[in-house]
């Protein structure tokens, strides 16, 4: 939607929009303040004093590092699987027409459209039916299932913008299917895949509901956080970890935004 240059937003709209954005951001900013508080036993506001010592204590906690390591490992493998499956699906759906094409879109979206608890409990009962022991791989299996959709969405959007005649031209000029894929298709969808991969990584890194069902004894970082939320042991350490998680997840999101901003997601942001 575009309006004439002269028209200005009514004040009430501006206030409502600003209020909404503040509502979205203030809680996250508050975490940053709490990471420095000297108060240990409660969530007292305003903080009685500020200190840096919790950063050192959090740094020396092996359980935090173990959880972080597992999260990164799971997110990497799940992202790799999602990239392959999501790209294949997107290519099939956007390049050809076949019976059941719409059903595939639905199938890909289903794991994220259905509540996470259903995906979790379904996978859990399937694992126990098949006598699969819980391990890192069962966590990966769960994560990859719902990560496919973000890769798929990004790739489908890019395929839609990539003209089919480019591919035909490449074939006409004598390139075989693999050469066309490597020199024409991949450069065209590359950034979309990178963006999709980063979002998939962020999604997996943060996922907690499915993980509570498919994880065994190991805890990923979100599971660690959840345990701290239910039974707090050392609140200031949780504050510090929360702040670091916010910073770490912001980076791939910003990167994904800059990779896809040329019209994929914000139509017409340029003049």
């Amino acid at each position, binding site marked *: *939607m*575009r*309006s*004439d240059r002269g*028209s*200005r937003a*009514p004040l009430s*709209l501006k206030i409502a*929009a600003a209020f*909404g*954005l503040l*509502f*979205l*951001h203030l*809680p*996250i900013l*508050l*975490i940053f303040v709490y990471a420095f508080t000297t108060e240990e036993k409660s*969530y*007292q*506001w*305003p903080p009685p004093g500020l200190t840096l010592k919790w950063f050192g204590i959090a740094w020396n906690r092996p359980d935090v590092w173990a959880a972080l390591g597992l999260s990164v490992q799971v997110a990497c493998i799940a992202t790799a*699987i999602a990239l*392959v*499956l*999501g790209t*294949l*699906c997107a*290519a099939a759906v956007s390049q050809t027409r*076949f019976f059941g094409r719409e059903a*595939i879109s639905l*199938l*890909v979206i289903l794991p994220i459209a*259905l*509540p*996470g*608890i*259903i995906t979790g*409990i*379904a*996978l859990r*009962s*399937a694992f126990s*039916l098949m006598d699969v022991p819980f391990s890192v791989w069962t966590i990966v299996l769960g994560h990859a*299932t719902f990560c*496919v959709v973000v890769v798929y969405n990004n790739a489908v959007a890019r395929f839609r913008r990539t003209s089919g005649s480019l591919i035909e031209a490449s*074939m006409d000029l*004598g390139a075989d*299917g*693999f050469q066309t894929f490597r020199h024409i298709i991949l450069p065209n969808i590359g950034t979309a895949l990178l963006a999709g991969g980063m979002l998939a990584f962020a999604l997996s890194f943060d996922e*907690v509901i499915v993980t509570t069902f498919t994880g065994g004894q190991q805890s990923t970082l979100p599971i660690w956080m*959840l345990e701290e*939320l239910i039974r707090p042991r050392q609140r200031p350490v949780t504050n510090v970890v*929360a702040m670091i*998680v916010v910073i770490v*997840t912001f980076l791939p*999101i910003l990167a994904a*935004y800059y990779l896809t901003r040329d019209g994929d997601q914000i*139509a017409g*942001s340029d003049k």
Partner: protein
Amino acid sequence: MTMLGMETQRTSILPRRGGLAGALSDTFWRHPKLLLFLMLTPPLLWLGIIYIGSLIALLLQSFFSIDEFSGMVSYEFTLATYAQLLSPANFDIILRTLLMATLVTIASAFIAFPIAYYAARYAQGKWKALFYLGVMLPLWSSYLVKIYAWKLILAKEGIVTWFFAKFHMAWLLDGLLALPIIGGNSLSVSYLGTFIVFVYIWLPYMILPTQAALERVAGNLVEASADLGATPRQTFRTVLFPLALPGIIAGSIFTFSLTLGDYIIPQIIGSSRLFIGQAVYALQGTAGNVPLAAAFSVVPIVIMGIYLWLAKRMGAFDAL
């Protein structure tokens, strides 16, 4: 280069490609169905077999029941487990969850609209990007960290209490908390708190589709409506809102579905009365009553099935 040029001049049909890759490529070109089959097999195996298979395995369990004496699952077809859903205690859980999902959806639609409308109609260039990131960053930041932030905010000694006390409005907060049902000891153990956190966490999912729908409304439609003498209120009701509705419905799919299935938010911020997700979690875990847990998880699936069907009829999927 010249060699290739000469060759193509002589014959318009290229020679058969050599090598395995070439032969494979030629085969795919001649049989596109084969390529399609190969492309679709891995994802379909994964999603169709592992995921859908698990779902079906789960749903089948809801037709079994648990033996009251031994506590073991008896593998005989029965609808008794579904009948248990209708017992007052269980039916309460379903109603409570549905009511919460509805209220959360309505509230997020109200808060989302101004942001989406401003971003779609007035924000340009740098501001547009800022709005986009302003919605995307909270959407993608860690779910648990966001809940944790609200635990800090809503705690009895937290910033909300401080804020109300500072502006001499402690009576207002106390009055809210004294309300039956939605109140409680502090905001972090009341339905009111659960509601606020639900709205906060799912709000971006409402903003994005609403904005996408509003982007597609031509600005001159609004101007034409004003030129024809409509008040802003009339323009909103008869032009803007109907055109934004598919987007709002698309957003409501997310807010509604996510609230239906969530069990972490009410567990951390809320009273002790259960929501569907918590019931499923408790039943399959400590209680070991997987059939009833499965029957409970069928409820959101059925509700979302009906919801999606209605949404599709209202054209919500074009706005996604």
